[in-house]
């Protein structure tokens, strides 16, 4: 059976006054039905550019995106967005402050199906109840809601066209800590009930561990490691994955003082290193790492890494 989403060799370059930035450089992955794939990396690694290309909010320069085996390029943008949708990071800026909740959640239904009247309001009420919000909220404006409720509204809008895949771009990063669990649990619950697949974009490894099945670690536009979350976090092969794990501060008293930050910073995307982009910060790198970026090489069940001197 073909995967729900297949991304092959996705590439996106941005031309700027100072030169060309390869934001996404040959990224390939699959998302199966009902699973959560996490896309992890620091700012500038290209994770959001991948998301926006999948939604065709920006046009990729190369590669193919297949949904249930059919090419994205042949489908209209409208039809495409009925299959996959997105929840953005900040529900304070992703909801139009001048629209009532009824209009926000109903807008995709009006645009895609031309629904109106009773049919429209029934659908809106249903999707609101799916995210745990009652019909009494329909006439309100976004500013009358808390951050957690706004994110629920954004989720209701995202599932209004009954997509099979949701892209979640840091969906809890802008929320209060005590509210994040509500949204994460709601997303897990919706996934089970509606059979959704998620592409979960995050820089927070702890959150990724608690929600995702598989993980892709990105660095400067390329996937450097992928595999099942539990395996990758337990025994990372790429030194960058290890560096990320070593950078997570812990509340566990036995872990105090064990923070081992990697040296240096992300290289400039305008002038990336010729070889492995992580080599300048990597304790294991040798001269051979500086020639060309190592290819992503399969290694065990469902796992792959792009490193000439892998760990473990």
């Amino acid at each position, binding site marked *: 059976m073909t995967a729900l989403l297949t991304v092959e060799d996705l590439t996106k370059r941005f031309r700027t006054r100072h030169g060309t930035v390869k934001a996404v450089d040959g990224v390939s992955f699959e998302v199966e039905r009902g699973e959560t794939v996490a896309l992890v990396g620091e700012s500038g690694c290209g994770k959001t550019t991948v998301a926006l290309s999948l939604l065709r909010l920006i046009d990729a320069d190369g590669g193919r995106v297949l949904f249930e085996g059919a090419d994205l390029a042949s489908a209209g943008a409208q039809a495409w967005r009925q299959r996959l949708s997105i929840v953005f990071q900040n529900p304070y800026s992703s909801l139009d402050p001048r629209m009532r909740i009824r209009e926000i959640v109903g807008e995709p239904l009006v645009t895609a199906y031309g629904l109106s009247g009773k049919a429209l309001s029934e659908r809106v009420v249903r999707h609101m109840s799916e995210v745990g919000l009652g019909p009494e909220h329909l006439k309100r404006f976004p500013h009358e809601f808390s*951050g957690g409720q706004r994110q629920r509204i954004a989720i209701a809008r995202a599932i209004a066209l009954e997509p099979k895949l949701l892209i979640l771009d840091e969906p809890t990063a802008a929320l*209060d*800590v005590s509210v994040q*669990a509500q949204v994460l649990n709601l997303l897990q619950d919706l996934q089970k009930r509606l059979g959704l697949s998620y592409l979960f974009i995050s820089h927070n490894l*702890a959150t990724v561990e608690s929600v995702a099945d598989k993980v892709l670690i990105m660095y400067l536009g390329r996937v450097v490691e992928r595999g099942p979350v539990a395996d990758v976090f337990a025994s990372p092969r790429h030194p960058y994955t290890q560096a990320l794990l070593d950078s997570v*501060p812990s509340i566990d*008293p036995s872990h105090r003082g*064990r*923070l081992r930050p990697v040296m240096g*910073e992300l290289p400039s995307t305008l002038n990336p290193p010729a070889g492995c982009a992580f080599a300048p910060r990597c304790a294991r790198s040798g001269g051979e790492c500086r020639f060309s970026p190592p290819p992503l090489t399969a290694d065990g069940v469902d796992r792959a890494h792009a490193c000439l001197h892998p760990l473990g």
Partner: protein
Amino acid sequence: MTDPLLTIRNLVIDFPGLERTVQAVRGVDLVVERGEVMGLVGESGSGKSMTALACLGLVPPPGRVTGSIRLAGEEIVGAPEAENERRRGKMAAMIFQNPGKALNPFFTIGRQLIDAIANVRRMDRAAAERAAREALSAVRIADPDMALQKYPHQVSGGQLQRAMIAMALACEPKLLIADEPTTALDVTIQAQVIVLLRDLARERGLTVLFITHDLGVIGSLCDRLAVMYAGRIVEQGTTDALFGHPSHPYTANLLKAVPMLGRGRVALTQIPGTVPNMSNPPPGCAFHPRCPSATTVCSQSAPPTVIDPSGYAVACHHPIGILAVRHSGGPAA
């Protein structure tokens, strides 16, 4: 024993409005000893940043501050602005979440560092420049001479935050207040800055009040912490004791609600409801509408703060865990 460096007593901060008054801080008691790294944890609106700003006399108008803040023996609350201005930088310095907004984009980092140092330490520019260079190497900036000549937009967020730390330290303050200094940084850079602050605190015996919403950051940096909720401190103790055996239901549930690396794919404990609106906080214990252990008394009276002999403090009518034993006079663990 010497006096604590910072003693806050019954601090109350109100923001009167036309219709409602926002009660940002509602009676905070906090002591920071010399040489310790104290964490102040809370969510948005908990009053943690206002408490910090009050320590510098920087609560913006129309904020009304009452109570007492003694910093190295001097009272901050109600002191004339000219006196507080003289204290800033020298007595207490602050670093902020977004270093890009804390620096002026029109001037080089060097110009701003040298100005600050010359002003606070009453030095001539040549001496201030030497101090700036030393401070930049102390925060592990590889090439201080180069960094001095850069404009803020020419360096990364991590380098800027280092420059801010350098500026704060070069003024040789008694207290460093850090308000979410790593929140805007990437994971690997955040870890670098945490380790830098931890090492600087150790090497120089620096006293730090570290404000954050991130429990993990506290865990890897702070000796003690205070947890704030809705303008009050609900629990306070050593990091090990508080994370090991939280006594307040808010802290206990928060620790289970936040994903922690190493726990695997688990269902998270959900705290119902939302952070209260501080123009109309719930009566009694502000956490009671969200609390699984709440009873009638919780909605009627604010719980008093109970402090055990070790200094562990909790404000809850129904504390859980070890402090419940301490509460009833039983043996402490």
